[in-house]
């Protein structure tokens, strides 16, 4: 048995407005390896937190595919009750691999 107790960087006392807007409460979805898809962020099992585009918020509902990608709905608000809903496939591993210097 190997039990870990990890803290993600979701302390909402952070003065940055973006983290406050990141969404409180329990994360909506978690991949088998512990990757968490929050309201506007992805928190990795290592504790790293990647924000997604400021204007996008994940819908609370999302689906992890067997290959580890995520199908989710994001919304771009354009005023009161208006906007654009986009179903996206999201590969949370692309950016990490790329920024590590590996070819995308």
């Amino acid at each position, binding site marked *: *048995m*190997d*039990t*870990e*107790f*990890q*803290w*993600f960087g*979701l*302390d*909402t*006392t*952070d003065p940055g407005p973006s983290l406050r807007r990141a969404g*409180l*409460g*329990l*994360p*909506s979805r*978690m991949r*088998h*390896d*512990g990757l*968490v898809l929050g309201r506007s962020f992805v*928190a990795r*099992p290592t504790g790293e937190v990647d924000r*997604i*585009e400021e204007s*996008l918020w994940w*819908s*609370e*509902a*999302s*689906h992890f*595919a067997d290959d580890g990608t995520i*199908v*989710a*709905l*994001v*919304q771009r608000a354009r005023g*009161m*009750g*208006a*906007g*654009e*809903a*986009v*179903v*996206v*496939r*999201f*590969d*949370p*591993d*692309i*950016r990490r691999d*790329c*920024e590590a*210097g590996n*070819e*995308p």
Partner: protein
Amino acid sequence: MDCPSPLEPLFSMPYDYGERHAMVELLGVSTDQERAWVAHGTGGTTYDQPGSRRTIIEVDLLQGTERSRVEVAPTFDAAGEPLHVPSLGRLWPNVVDEAGVAWLGQIGADVAAWQGHGWFPVVASPDGRYLVHTRWPDRADVDADWLALRDAAGRYLGRVEPAVMRAVYEPSFSPDGEYIAYRGCRPYRGRGCLYDTYVEPVADHARSKRRLRSAFGGKGPLQGRPIDVNGARGDGHRFAPDGRHLFVLVHEKAQACVFRVQVETQQHERWACVQAEPQDRVKLLTAGQRGLVAVARRTTTGGRGLGHRVPVVRTRYD
């Protein structure tokens, strides 16, 4: 090196309701990843208000196009009480008619992961053969809701729980589809509740309506008996991938412990514990092939006021 965006748009849909409570949700994705269901509408979280509307769109994810759509709106009786209220993937079974349940059931059977964070979701068995959902009382003088089992077409098969419950929550199928686990509230001291975790064999209910109808105080090995781990009541559960064990979360004095319960015999063992104060709300998330994942919500007092932290507990099976 330019890193590509990790977001690949599959389908886009503008909306403009001109009101504050517009809502758009992804209901689910098909197991082959080729279709998705998106619901949108007005009325926000108040599904039962006159004028609220819902549209459910079936999306072709390969083509990025809409395949079909269904418009639904609530109806009301003469007294203004809701009769049929569509919701965003969360049925309010007392006000959704049989056709509505059947229709959503057909979607539910095809959806890989029905989004169950709302109230009263329809849950599909992994093999798509069965659906289960909470149903509100049929009669005004009965203060109890219950779990309805249906086939994939939405046909009613029977009631799941044999004992009289005041409320039932979080039904889930075992990976092999043979069991349903749920939380039940037994009446306690007037309107109070004794919460427990229960497991019922699906076949008993699916094969025999007669048995189910007479199942109060049933004779099955588990029927009506709560999962009891060291005298404590379960506070959340997840089936193990083998379908033969159930992980049950129990909050103890200064820790939260997960017990592994053998479904047929109810033999249990303490599996993993983490330090958790009474104010920490620990919740089981998944029991996947690699291990068990739980999260907790912790309220902290920092220099800038109250905040929340989300610890994650992971336990590997090996």
